[in-house]
């Protein structure tokens, strides 16, 4: 196993689920309740030193009991190392802890995940829609059950759907 993954397994045996390496990318699966402390450790530990947040993303797996996967990707500029941290949450309780207190850049990235996938972030300072309109009524567009052409809200706009 990758030394970073081994380290996390030692320090957080109850949080660590599994680690995998594919095409040179290291992925760490972590229990959702412990995500924040693991990330805090990744950022603060001088031997790991993941000081740079690359992206926050989410994947929807409708058939899986824990439907949503939240993906964080970090980089260590000093060590030139990369890590991906993933956690899964069910649809009924899709809440994970926000990383905004560790990486300030997580603010907009998490807002985008909330906007697109509907995952909520605990302790986020301003969790509102960012790319879609504030009054967008159709839910979360990147979920797999959302049709590509939308659900028809757009057609109710007078200047788009008008037949003269």
């Amino acid at each position: 196993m990758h030394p970073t993954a081994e380290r996390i397994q030692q320090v957080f045996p109850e949080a660590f689920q599994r680690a995998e390496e594919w095409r040179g990318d290291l992925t760490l699966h972590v229990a959702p309740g412990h995500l924040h402390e693991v990330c805090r450790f990744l950022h603060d530990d001088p031997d790991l030193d993941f000081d740079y947040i690359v992206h926050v993303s989410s994947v929807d797996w409708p058939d899986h009991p824990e439907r949503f996967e939240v993906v964080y990707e970090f980089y260590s500029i000093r060590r030139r190392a990369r890590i991906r941290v993933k956690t899964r949450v069910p649809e009924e309780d899709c809440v994970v802890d926000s990383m905004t207190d560790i990486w300030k850049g997580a603010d907009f990235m998490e807002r985008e995940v909330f906007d697109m996938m509907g995952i909520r972030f605990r302790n986020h300072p301003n969790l509102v829609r960012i790319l879609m309109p504030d009054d967008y009524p159709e839910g979360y567009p990147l979920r797999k059950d959302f049709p590509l052409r939308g659900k028809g809200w757009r057609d109710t706009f007078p200047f788009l759907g008008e037949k003269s």
Partner: protein
Amino acid sequence: MRPPLDDQRTTVYKVDPEHPESPSLPTLRTEEMMLNMGPQHPSTHGVLKVVLALEGERIVKATPVLGFLHRGVEKLAEDGTYHQFIPHTDRLDYICAMYNNFAYCRAVEKLLDLTVPPRAEYLRTIVAEVQRIIGHQFWLGTQALDIGAMTVFFYTFRDREILLDFFDELCGARLTTSWYRIGGVERDFTPDLIDKLRRFIDYFPPKLDEYITFLETNRIWLSRTKGVAVISAEDAVNFGLSGPTLRGSGVDYDLRKFEPYAAYDQCEWSVPVGKNGDTYDRYWVRVEEMRESLKMVRQLLEKLPDGPIMADVPSVTLPPKSRVFNDLASMIQQFKLFSEGFKAPTGEIYCGTEAAKGELGFYIVSTGEGKPYRLKIRAPSFIHMGAFDYMARGYMIADIVTIFGTYDIVMGECDR
């Protein structure tokens, strides 16, 4: 320099001790004013709206309102084949389309574990660096225009036109190029194009000095860029800034050096790094990057190897157009690749590329289908906007235009 906000507030309310008889200011009514900037403002580089909370002329809070150009590119990606997504990437950062194609093709190649032939790698690197020069020229011209130095705009756009003509001849389009392909490139350089590029390499350095002369002797440019939009190295890293915006703060994070790809390790070049983290240092970094790009293009043209320009993996890569029209097997291959696409292996990758604006990354999840299951774009402009409020607070309202420009923001990429 940015005066600390709180001090400014206390001085407003203090009575001047030398003239205690002067009317004390607290009797004046003060209140915060809200101002909508954009989305139709010419200096917002597209359709960016910022809601400013002002105290007099000083910015107390700047809230970017994004999404006016949101087209759901990530959703569209889930509905098309891997090849079909290439033209969509042109429309992300439409100033530097080539680099978006490059970043995307690299990501898919990482997913497929595909090796690109050396000549294609060289061509890709050369064109990417030419694209970087175009991006920085565009930035320099528009930033100077926004700040009030109009002349530079005409000069940079004149020289940018030469390179756009070069693109036009290379792939038939000036802006939405789609020249990169998964596994290689669409078309080879002709001797005429190489000649053109060589001539440009000799032509451009004196012109670059000319731009600098215009700006460095301009007191307005200096006073409006020096000490504006300052961010420390630590904060810049914490916010996830990348590209010249981060390097202006003194962090040498450049994926071309950190994780060398294509032919970047085949030539001598260095990473220009700023010191103060202000707009002026970012300007300096971008100008120096143009020089480095020229250096790279010159060296790579010298060393350009012969060979194929496309990897030969018939299940994934497209056959050359000349064969498609003349031989049945190639036509079937082309048809199948575009209608069904190829099956990528199950797995997920993230691949970051150093584009002109910063780190442009693609996170692709594949379930073994012909389409990506999930495709996430890490757009530098979007992440830079996350630091906007932090970097704008305390400056005057006139500086807001400089602060937009300092990131080299493009809304097509920011809103996706």
